[in-house]
């Protein structure tokens, strides 16, 4: 099994986020190393999604610091755009562009952000579609695909930017049960290839299989973190125990 690298690629220091006057993140401090796979779990409303959305500034943090690959996220637009092109994100609802074909969905950002030639971008897109196992769907439109296929296209779309980090926001929650595994397989393969990943998910099997670290979140805090083996066998915090007893 691969080992996380030495470099801290994500640094979060006392990150706090408010929605109007509700505090969703109450001071989160953590670091993620290169090639590390971190899985966030916790009840809904605990701040998991808010945290990973703060990592590419889809949510603005009002206090604390977020540093991605040595660049701090501030109001500086150039930094934000630079970081966003380095950080891929996969959403619960896929968010594929329904007016573009699968191929166009994948090549859009490389062409317009990375200024890649179209032919090169398309070659890369085909390669990525092969990697996620659906090369034959390239010319179809997103809504013609099944949920699992759509999510795999969404992963390919993020990978097309050669990201250093991939964020997954409950990627399997909107899928029918029989489609979950096809998406998880892709994610497992990705993790084994050495991608740095932060994953919000309820799939404990996935966490057990590939996570280097499992984080339990509740009430806007990181309540407990540790390696998956220990965490699932012997959680310490009363809230994590309670949560695990519901879910396992």
């Amino acid at each position, binding site marked *: 099994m691969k080992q996380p690298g030495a470099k801290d690629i994500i640094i979060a220091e006392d990150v706090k986020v408010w929605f*109007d006057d509700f*505090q969703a993140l109450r001071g989160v401090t953590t670091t993620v190393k290169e090639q590390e796979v971190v899985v966030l779990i916790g009840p809904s409303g605990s701040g998991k999604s808010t945290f990973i959305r703060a990592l590419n500034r889809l949510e603005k943090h009002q206090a604390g610091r977020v540093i991605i690959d040595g660049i701090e996220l501030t109001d500086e637009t150039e930094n934000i755009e630079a970081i966003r092109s380095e950080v891929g994100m996969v959403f619960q609802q896929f968010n594929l562009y329904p007016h573009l074909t699968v191929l166009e969905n994948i090549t859009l950002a490389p062409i317009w952000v990375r200024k890649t030639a179209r032919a090169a971008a398309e070659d890369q897109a085909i390669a990525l579609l092969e990697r996620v196992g659906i090369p034959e769907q390239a010319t179809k439109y997103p809504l013609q695909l099944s949920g699992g296929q759509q999510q795999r296209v969404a992963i390919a779309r993020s990978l097309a930017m050669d990201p250093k980090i991939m964020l997954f926001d409950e990627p399997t929650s909107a899928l029918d049960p029989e489609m979950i595994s096809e998406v998880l397989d892709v994610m497992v393969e990705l993790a084994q290839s050495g991608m740095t990943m932060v994953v919000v998910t309820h799939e404990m099997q996935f966490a057990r299989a590939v996570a280097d670290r499992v984080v339990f979140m*509740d009430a*806007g805090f990181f*309540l*407990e973190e*540790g390696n998956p083996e220990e965490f699932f066998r*012997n959680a310490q*915090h009363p809230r994590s125990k309670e949560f695990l007893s519901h879910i396992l």
Partner: protein
Amino acid sequence: MTSLGPTESVLDAERESPPQKVAIGAFDWMRKHLFSSVFNTTLTVIALLIAVFVTRGIAGFIFGDRPKWGSVTENMRLYMTFGYPPEQIFRVWLSVGIVFALFGLTLAAWGGGNRVSANRLASSVTKLGGTLVALALVTGPFPILWDDAPLSLRAEIIMVVIGFALGGLAMFHKARTEEQPERTISRTGILAGSVVFFIAFIWLLQVPTPMLDADGVYSEPLAPLATTTTWPWTLMAVIMMVFFLLGGVFVDRRGEERLRSVLVASWLFSYPLIVFVILRAPDIDWNQFWTRDIWIVLGFVVGGGLLLLLVADPERPERGRILSLGTVVLAIAMFWPLSIGGLPRNLMIVTAIYMLVAPSFAAKGAMKRTLANWVAVVLIASFFMIAMDTEMILQISKESFLGGLALTIILALGALGLAFPLAILVALGRQSRMPIFRQLSIGYVELIRGVPLIVWLIMAIGLFGFFVPTGVELDKVIRVLVAFTIFWAAYLAENIRGGLQAVGKGQTEAAEALGMTAFQTTTLIVLPQALRLVIPPIVGQVITSFKDTSLVAIVGVFELLNIAIRSIPAQTVPTSNFTFIGTVSENLLFVAMVYWVFTYTMSRSSLRLEEKLGVGKR
């Protein structure tokens, strides 16, 4: 390896407030919503300038020297009922009374027990106060910025004081109830408050009243409304309140459902009652009624009843079908070759339609009800037929029998009501699997919708006469009513088609699987669902239709608009040099306001209805 985060006590502790102060002060609110950036500030300034400019312009016109508002206030009766004889005006008030009574009952039947949040009410009051203050400051004199203003200083001060008083009242309420659970006010309370407010308003209101002194000099001193206005309206408001309370009692005793079904029928029935009986005041020839008409009616009641027993016999469906077809043939034969007109022919048409429809709904157990319905249908239909077929008691020309706002409302509702059944037929035809029905419907809808309404109205006035037998004279109102009916049916049909498409195929299949006939499936399963779905678009169509009635001004029918631009600007006062000639803009502003109040109220209620039905969300 495992590291632990904060403990329970920390988790349950109060969450921090955001670093920026969010306690919404007026200043913060303005910074956030008006001046968040340079661009935003520029926008705010531009919008503010336009708003001030427009408001002052309008106020300057309204309170300026030029307009003669007397042309509006003096002609109120013309606007409302046009040439209706003043000595018969109680008929109009009776009609309004019926509508208000039904309205009161309707409020009770639909959400009489509803409660409105006191805080929401308070915030509306605050908004009202703020608007008053803003209006006063913009239109009244203001040091440095402008000295000459449309509004006098006294009026400005009064408005500002009232505005702050309202705002303060609401704030006080809010501050007092902050700690308590949300309070609500019942619909009854709000309605009673509104009624009291309305009555106080009309008794205190002062309007410009035209005066001519001995030298023929015109002036418009402010004066209270005439008692011929205030007393009837007070009565109307009280009637509505009383019927609302009565409705509440009825709901408590018998439940909402029963009141609702009675009300739907009453609303439908009220239209012909008001138009043909109360307003039109038919001079029924009782002698002819007792010697001839009564026997015709009784003949149809008995004959039709017997026929119904045969037609609706579930044991012998074939015979029923042949008999009902026979009535249709007989009804057509009345036109040609028999050429029998009047009551017998019209009742025969009613019979034919009833015989066609009845077998689908008549069951063994329901025979009594079907017969009772039949008797009621014949009696009501005969009553209105006789009432419509006689001269009026009123000594006025047909052309000016109705006009003004009354005509606008009666035209819109009447044409929509007539258009509705036609629209359902066309919509069903367009969804039909039979190609000829489909083509006829598509042709109808496309032809009618493709050509502007005004062209149809011009044709109705100019060409209609050529297409009816020589000697038949129809007055303008009937012609435009026919044109509106045909026109709106096409639009309504498209709305209804939307609803029909939304009712899933599964519904039809389920009904057919139960052995229902196509007719039963359509009328009992598909249509009720489809019509429920299309209520919001139909309300939209009602609004459009209401606005469209103004087009009849072009073809010379005197509804609101035509009165404003033709009747009043042509008025002169004999034996003086005073006229209302040239008073177009003030009349137009008034008419625009009347239309706006009606359409805006309708569109708001349709929005609320949409939320309630939850159809908009699909």
